[in-house]
């Protein structure tokens, strides 16, 4: 295999492996939204507060996935 193809192969595999980290963000978002929906079902009066906090928590959980995404983007587009 010529070196250029090897580099492309390595970049693709590395970027794919880096995106495994997004699974953690998915789990986190699922847990926090599930909890928030339960809480909203129990006391709907507090929906605005719960929703705000839920979106914040989702954004934090998403941040972890975004770190993985950034790593894989760097592997794909910055490394050469």
């Amino acid at each position: 295999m010529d070196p250029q193809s090897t580099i492309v192969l390595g970049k693709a595999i590395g970027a794919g492996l880096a995106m495994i980290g997004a699974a953690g963000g998915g789990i986190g978002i699922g847990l926090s939204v599930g909890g928030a929906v339960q809480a909203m079902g129990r006391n709907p009066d507090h929906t605005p507060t719960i929703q705000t906090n839920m979106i914040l928590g989702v954004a934090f959980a998403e941040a972890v996935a975004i770190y993985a995404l950034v790593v894989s983007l760097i592997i794909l587009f910055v490394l050469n």
Partner: protein
Amino acid sequence: MNSFWNGKRRYIALLLFLAGVFVALEVPPVIPFIQLPGENLPAGYNIPFTDMRITNTLVAAVIVWLLLLLFLVYIARRRPSDGSEVPPGGFYNMFEALFEGLMGFIGGIAGGPHFRLIFNMFMTIFLIVLLSNWMSLVPGIDTVGFIHAHTKEKFDPETQEYKVITTDGFEIYQGFLGISYVNGQCNWISPADEAAADDRAMAAALAARAAAEQDALVEAAYARYQAEHDDHGDEAPGETADDAHADDDHATEPVETDEAAAAYDEVLAARSAEKQARRDRGCYTGVAVSSWEDGYEPAEKDAKKAPIPLHPDPSSDDAKRVPWVVLPLVRVASTDLNMTLTLALIAVVMVQVVGVRALGISYFTKFFNFSTLFKSPLGGIDVAVGLLELIGDFAKVLSFSFRLLGAMFAGAILLFVMSFLVPILPWPFFILEFFVGAIQALVFALLTAIFMQLATISHHHDDEHDHAEAH
């Protein structure tokens, strides 16, 4: 103006849709070109009177600042100054509602003596990030720009660095994680090109010397010929044969005339002056010690892999092999790490400033907590916790900047890809980006506010109180 948008003009949307269909069918798709660092605008778009290059993300950032300034002037002019209750309306009313909502929101989180300072920082960061995020939704941004030949990155064996070459051949130095800076003075010259230029200069010098020597030879021969014809007009043929032989001897032995040496020196001096001028401008001057290594061997590869010239003539065969890409005139500012890192540094530094304002110099005991080291058996833990807080503040910079960069850059790529995959209907993704931009701006600003609020609390004292009460 208002009646124009009053819901009777929905056919505009239909026309846009049909235009999208037409464009999707008629225009051949191009491969979206994705680059993490901000691209440099071509030479000639420098900052006036300097050689500093402008990136297209900087253009977007300047547009954001100008828009914010206009926005500020507008809001200040619309604001009823004398307390007269002019019923507000339109954009001003919307902004007032947003402002009051956010004020109440932050008041719930960081209400207290430092509310004004915290809210000012919150609102500033929120508006800047929101505007620059939402710029990715504006048509023409990220898409309208200069079409140029895409040239690839080069590995420089001397400095062991990768170099990106812009279309017009200027070097971009790539530092850590795509933070780029440009040496606007230097055209990139690869070590192989440099060596070739050296070879050419040496060949030119040799040719100049040979030409000078030839001139001298011809001159001498002519002089001899003149002398012979003047003096010995009636010579025997044998003697002329001898003379010709003597001329041949002259031709083979090198004639070191002053003119030849001067011509040789002149060419080489011009070349070394050129190299010195490059070096004086701070340019990298490659000298080929070994062959140019970028995984490319012209002898083994087919013609497709031959290097593409930096300025291919559009009508030439070279141009057909060039991947032509668009260098957008304006690219969303928050897809550049320089922008997000700057905002993150400002936010984290302002957190420290708020902390010092609230607690004075004792704020830093949060980081260097040696007070309990010898008093309590677990005092060492406090020191370690303080150092962890210190590291955590540096981690905040990274997490702030990468969260925004990642979300917005991924959003930009999503919009690129979807616009090329589904050219007719990429709108749902624009709606998604609308919300992502708003949420990321809110998260960035809200985290700043929360960290500021945490910095104003002297939890050291609270801990002692808690311990005292617990005991």
